[in-house]
């Protein structure tokens, strides 16, 4: 460390207090917007990001090389940041979505939403929650996820809710990098060895039934993801064409995580993610 900074102890004085990611941000719900609908929409996008971040962070120390380990951790961090803002926004719009905790609990709303809801109250797509597979699996998952999320966030930059619009404007810059990373690795694995291509095609086949959920219709507040289907298809077809990989012929799964119908994988993911917070509901972090 440079001597100039070595004596500056304030650099390392991490505070222990909670930092509200929306401190000072005007969270008034704009006129004409239904607070419950706004909260439901933010919860859906926040849960996608939170569950994806958790799955990506499970890759820490397991990627094929250090650079990709860092890349996956970075993407997890971006999504965790988006999740914090979106869950906080949902709670500020409609405090009714926040699980009730004992009086005097120091748990902030975003943490109550992340750590004190059971699986059936999560609104994420099932693509985010399925268990990790090999490296091709995380490449395909990130490609399907970030193509749809980028298209949605691009449109949400013009949201009548100023907080959601700001989160989207920032998120677009981040997800652009995620989508490029996934697209490049998709191409690399497709054109790599027979084995890399076999694994890529297997991952695509396994995850394809989850893709439709990303662009399933949503009524109420916000951009309806179903209106982005063509746009999403154009980008996916572009990656498939360049890679010389066929679009899988697999029907979508029935039901949707948006209604709380999840796979068993979400419950085990949450059991691990929530165990410490639930064991110490009055703990301060």
């Amino acid at each position, binding site marked *: 460390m440079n001597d100039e900074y070595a004596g500056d102890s*304030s650099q390392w004085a991490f505070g222990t207090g909670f930092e509200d990611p929306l401190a000072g941000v005007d969270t008034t719900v704009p006129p004409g917007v239904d607070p419950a609908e706004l909260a439901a929409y933010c919860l859906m996008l926040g849960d996608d990001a939170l569950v994806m971040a958790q799955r990506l962070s499970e890759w820490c120390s397991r990627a094929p090389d250090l*650079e990709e380990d*860092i*890349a996956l951790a970075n993407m997890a961090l971006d999504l965790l*940041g988006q999740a914090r803002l979106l869950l906080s926004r949902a709670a500020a719009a409609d405090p009714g979505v926040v699980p009730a905790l004992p009086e005097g609990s120091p748990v902030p709303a975003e943490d109550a939403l992340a750590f004190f809801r059971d699986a059936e109250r999560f609104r994420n797509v099932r693509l985010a929650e399925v268990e990790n597979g090999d490296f091709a699996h995380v490449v395909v998952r990130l490609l399907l996820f970030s193509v749809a999320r980028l298209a949605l966030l691009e449109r949400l930059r013009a949201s009548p809710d100023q907080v959601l619009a700001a989160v989207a404007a920032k998120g677009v810059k981040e997800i652009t990098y995620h989508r490029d990373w996934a697209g490049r690795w998709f191409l690399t694995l497709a054109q790599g060895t027979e084995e890399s291509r076999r694994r890529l095609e297997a991952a695509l086949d396994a995850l394809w039934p989850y893709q439709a959920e990303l662009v399933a219709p949503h009524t109420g507040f916000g951009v309806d993801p179903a209106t982005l289907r063509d746009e999403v298809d154009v980008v996916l077809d572009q990656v498939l064409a360049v890679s010389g990989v066929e679009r899988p012929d697999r029907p979508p799964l029935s039901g949707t995580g948006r209604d709380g119908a999840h796979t068993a994988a979400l419950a085990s993911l949450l059991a691990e993610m929530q165990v410490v917070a639930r064991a110490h509901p009055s703990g301060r972090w």
Partner: protein
Amino acid sequence: MVSAAERAAEVARQVRDPEMPMLTLADLGVLRDVEVRGGEEVVVSITPTYTGCPAMATMRDDLVHRLRAAGFDRVEVRIVLDPPWTSDWITERGRAALREAGLSAPGPAPRRTGPIPLTLGPARSAPACPRCGSAATRLTSEFGATACKALYRCTGCQEPFEHVKEI
């Protein structure tokens, strides 16, 4: 006589980024506003570089700590999300400090209209090596030790270096 507002702004401008301490928060473009209310309460506004930037809590604590040490007992740190931070806000002094520390400063951030194109090839122009100046550099990864940096290697002097990303 220096006013309280000028004094508070000067103290805030001196606070350094916890992850890239060669930069002040002002040089990084993260410090958006310093306001003094009623002569004693300071309201500082900062904006995150990336949504998940884990350094935000430390920045807030450092600002509070320094301003209190300078005699401002009431300090509030606010988050500004709009407009989002862009690497274009890094000052000239900040860019010089990055280069001095062996990091490559960002070029102009992309200004896009319409749908964002997918980039499957290495389309972004590679930065010059901050050590030897060679233009022969190669991207190692678009993700680095902090959210705001990418990793490159110079094929001239063979040294790896970090590049602050354009966003």
